[in-house]
């Protein structure tokens, strides 16, 4: 189902065009990655989608409604974390999350369970009643993600969610994004220049260069080489193969089906080589 339909989107800053996206569709149940170097228009694109940038040309439809005309309606289904999140320093994480839920749903939060669920998901249980100004950068980032998921939005936009985070922080964010992605009818869109992170969490990746889409890459098209030991004649029975060369079979996308097939037929797997072309393409497009 198409959740976001972008047609001829272009954003200008003075006389300069900073974003020229053309036509793009974003479907539910997908994690999208927007990658590109600094200044490529990643944040601008997300800011336009969530209504922060209002002066753009073209048409954005969110769940069928025109973004410019139905900002209030669309804002209820879009949750966003834009750049380094800023908060009210004298508020507390639980107070801020409660405020965000009330603002997004338009309903008063009666029980603390709703707030605690989000606080628990972002791992701020111990600091939920501390003043926000006392939180660390990583905790602030997680609180930003928490505020983006308040009110169960269908579209979650995360801008540089791993920026300034250490490895443990990145893993925590990765875990949160994977949890969000498992929700039904949800789009998660991650803008980042952290190619490893994007590669780990996204199904589809859009490369932006100078505000334009340079390349669109679907992980489904990733090729995997599997080298087996014996029973090579059985490989030709597997339906979704790309190529067979001796004891080596090349597969496209998810290899879970092949693993099942191998177990069922007693095929011993010797080696799996994933041909991830994401980094290759990144280097090709943006240089080293």
């Amino acid at each position, binding site marked *: 189902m198409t959740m976001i339909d972008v047609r001829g989107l272009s954003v200008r*800053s*003075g006389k300069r065009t900073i974003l020229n996206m053309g036509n793009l569709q974003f479907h539910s149940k997908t994690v999208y990655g927007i990658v590109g170097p600094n200044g490529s228009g990643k944040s601008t694109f997300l*800011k336009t989608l*969530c*209504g*922060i*940038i*209002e*002066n753009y040309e073209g048409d954005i439809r969110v769940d069928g409604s025109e973004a410019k005309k139905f*900002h*209030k*309606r669309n*804002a*209820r289904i*879009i949750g*966003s974390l*834009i*750049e*380094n*999140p*800023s*908060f*009210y*320093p*004298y*508020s507390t994480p639980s*107070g801020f999350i409660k*405020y*965000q839920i009330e*603002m*997004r749903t*338009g309903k008063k939060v009666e029980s603390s369970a709703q707030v605690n669920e989000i606080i628990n998901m972002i791992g701020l249980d111990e600091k939920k009643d501390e*003043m926000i100004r006392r939180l660390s950068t990583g905790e602030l980032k997680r609180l930003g993600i928490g*505020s983006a998921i308040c009110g169960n939005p269908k579209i979650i936009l995360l801008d540089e969610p791993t920026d300034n985070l250490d490895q443990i922080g990145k893993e925590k964010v990765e875990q949160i994004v994977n949890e969000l992605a498992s929700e039904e009818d949800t789009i998660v869109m991650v803008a980042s220049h952290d190619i490893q992170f994007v590669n780990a969490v996204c199904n589809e990746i859009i490369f932006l260069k100078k505000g334009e889409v340079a390349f669109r890459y679907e992980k489904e098209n990733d090729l995997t080489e599997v080298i087996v030991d014996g029973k090579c004649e059985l490989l030709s029975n597997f339906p979704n193969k790309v190529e067979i060369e001796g004891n080596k079979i090349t597969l496209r996308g998810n290899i879970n089906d092949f693993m099942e097939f191998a177990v069922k037929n007693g095929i011993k797997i010797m080696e799996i080589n994933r041909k991830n072309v994401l980094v290759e393409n990144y280097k090709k497009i943006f240089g080293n």
Partner: protein
Amino acid sequence: MTKFFIYHTVKSRAFLFMVFLNSVISILIASIMFISPVLLKSFVPGNIQVNGLPEILVKRLFNFQWANIMIYIPVLSSAFFGSTAIPYEYERGTIYNLSSLPVDRFQILMSKITGATVLSFLSTSIIVVFQILFFVLLFKSLPGFQFLFYILLLLLVTFSDVCFAVAVSVFFNNSGHSAIAFLIVYLVIMNIISLIATGTHFISPIFVKTNTDRIIYRVFINADPYFLRYSFSLSPIALPGIEYISGILLLYSFSALIVSYIVFSLRRNFS
């Protein structure tokens, strides 16, 4: 939204500072009044002795003098809470979060103005509490019915000052610049206009915001020690006078609201 803004600011250092400042000011006013009756006498014309005046007049003089200092407190509070309300969002970047919420600019603006008015009035109330306290200590009785008018007018003046401060602040991205600009417009430019008005009779000084705010102390004694523009009277200002000036203050408030809304709506988060 208003509740969140109020809750957040009440816990801030700015609010604590304002509470501290107002408490110090109150104690200073009280000290001056108790130590130096000369000040009280300075508002009594001619050779009339304060001690010889009827008690009701001395009570009025007490409140009049207290309210004379009080008129600057809503201005100060508005500079603190009103003129920083919107620029604070731009300065800290929380405007991104606000803009992505399902609320329009009018709602944001009204929440900010309501929040700032409540906070300004709360901090101003500290001085009122001290005023009542010292009144009771001095005269062994509660302030009369006029005090109610005084508090209502204080609320109206605070609201109009906050609206005025927000109208100035919507042009700024920086809280400090915005507060300074408001104080310059209010204390310097408005007083220059007032002086010109007094000198040229081109417009009545009563229409100038700084003069209009002075209705607070005229509830007790109808005199303006700054311009002596109004007919000097030891009686309180008459009700039609209060209604008239309240109308002017409301006009200021609504004009400021319209300006704030237009500018804030036209303002983009990005150029």
